């Protein structure tokens, strides 16, 4: 008799967990809806759309939540992020995090990149490690190989006092850096793939 009760409990438990799983949307199902703008598996082929495949899960999750609550500026992502709950954001972020990173096919200026390296070593290296190639599980984003145009869209906003984007180096770096400095820095990241 005890055995049978355990069997029933097991059956009920099974069906409940199956129901929860059936109601949840998978990361790949969610992630595939992003591909029209961000490319298959997040490997964007277009300069204003950031590459998100192979980016860190924690960073992606934070970015989506910041878009959703307006603490990160956007034209369209804020409206889109409002359509997802925490669980869905976590699932799609995990999906993109496990994709291979495919660096942008963009021209780079070796001379500028060399100049940018100095600025990188001085101001960026501590967080964006390994020449910016590191996509930490729960840390700052990978910058190496990212579309420079998409990075510039973010940075332009960081430098705008009215903009929501907060970056830890906003005061120390971006407030003081010249346009030429930023160009050089972006070329440095573009040159590292």
């Amino acid at each position, binding site marked *: 008799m005890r055995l049978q009760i355990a069997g029933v409990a097991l059956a009920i438990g099974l069906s409940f967990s199956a129901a929860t799983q059936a109601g*949840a949307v998978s990361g790949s*199902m969610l992630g595939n*809806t992003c591909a029209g703008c961000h490319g298959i598996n997040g490997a964007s*082929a*277009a300069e204003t759309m950031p590459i998100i495949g192979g980016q860190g899960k924690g960073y992606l999750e934070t970015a989506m939540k910041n878009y959703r609550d307006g603490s990160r500026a956007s034209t369209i992502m804020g409206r889109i992020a409002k*359509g997802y709950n925490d669980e869905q954001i976590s699932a799609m972020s995990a999906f993109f995090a496990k994709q291979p990173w495919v660096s942008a096919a963009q021209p780079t200026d070796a001379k500028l990149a060399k100049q940018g390296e100095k600025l990188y070593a001085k101001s960026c290296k501590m967080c964006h490690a390994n020449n910016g190639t590191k996509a930490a599980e729960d840390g700052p984003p990978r910058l190496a190989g990212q579309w420079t*145009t998409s990075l510039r869209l973010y940075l332009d906003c960081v430098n705008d006092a009215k903009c929501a984007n907060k970056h830890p180096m906003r005061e120390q770096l971006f407030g003081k850096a010249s346009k030429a400095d930023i160009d050089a820095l972006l070329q440095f990241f573009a040159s590292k793939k």
Partner: protein
Amino acid sequence: MTNSNRRNFIKSVSGVSLAAAMGMGISLRAGAAVKAKIVVVGGGYGGVIAAKYLKMAEPGLEVVLIEQNKRYVSCPLSNEVLAGLGNIEHLTFGYEGLARRGITVVHDTVEAIDPQARKVMISGGKSFDYDRVIVSPGVDFKWGAIKGYDEEASQTIPHAWKAGPQTTLLANQIKDMKDGGVVIITVPDNPFRCPPGPYERAALIAHYLKQNKPRSKIILLDAKDKFSKQGLFLQGWTQHYGDIISESSKEKYGSMIEWVPASKGGEIDAINAATRTAMSVVGKEFKADVLNVIPPQHAGKIAHTTGLVNPKGWCPVDFKTFESTMHKNVHVIGDACVGGAMPKSGYAANSQAKVAVAAIIASLRGVDPDEPAYLNACYSLITPEHGISVTAIYQVKDGQLVEVPNSGGVSPIDVSPAFRKIEVAHAKSWLKNITTEMFG
């Protein structure tokens, strides 16, 4: 039920669920080798993505894509061509990338689909057997719904609502028009392909005329009283084309775009192709120098001949699988299907294709389909530096495809020119990424 019966009942129930759980585990693990034949009819924003994602999910599947044209011309961003801002070649794509992925691409006309025999017939008596067919034929025009407007009339009075030679025809007519001419665009009632398209078209033609023929006017004759992104379009039209002044003589020409809603007599039911005149249902006549008729639409012809349409001419589907509610093993995606809250857009077709593919793969593997996810994003240009967008996320609720509440929507009304300019850049990136996703 006696005690002992109940005991037996419980035993058998737990036995069944255990077996089911085991079975599921086996088929999930064995997911690698699913063999089936899938035919995709139509190689546009929906069909191409369906074919490609089928092959990506299950390389062992036999996927046949049947499309009559050798080259695909994107409707999205084709209004730019009318303004002299883009080249139709940049919107033209070949199917070689799909063939390289092992998809059999057949350029032919589908004559019939037999849902009972599971066969797709093409010209010359050839046919393809299928386990599942995905039908993505887009729209066809209801020739004759506007009296005097048929396929022959469209050779001189372009619709330009399927991109290609029609786009070029309309662009050339606008280029050849005299300064001070009138461009009339007639707009059908909902639902139709690309709801913001006619209003973007008016804006981009205005962009061209403002610089080249500033005395000209554009009149939109609409069968509706409201339209997509209306507030943003009205704002943009006023801002850029509301007060046209001649650069040389400083003469004021006033507003270039006039929108005539149905309630003001904008709905037309006849045209005279020879005199380029549109006749409204209330008996008004509008004489144009360039007449662009966007005709009423319904699902592409093959959907009708296969018996997939409802009385309104669109294909009802189960929104979780996009399987037709009329025929089993036939899935309909894109403009041709009844899309619930989703508009008839390229992005919607792309998103629906992926839901249909996931459902087909799950069914072939013998597992429950994933809970679906759907998205739409549409950009429109008002000038080469002023872009606007609409986006939405959808879910199935009580069998209906509805928007997720408190999300999506149109671009804000009170933003900087820099914001509008970024939306133009994103529109171009969108085209690059979505066409790379399709044909790359």
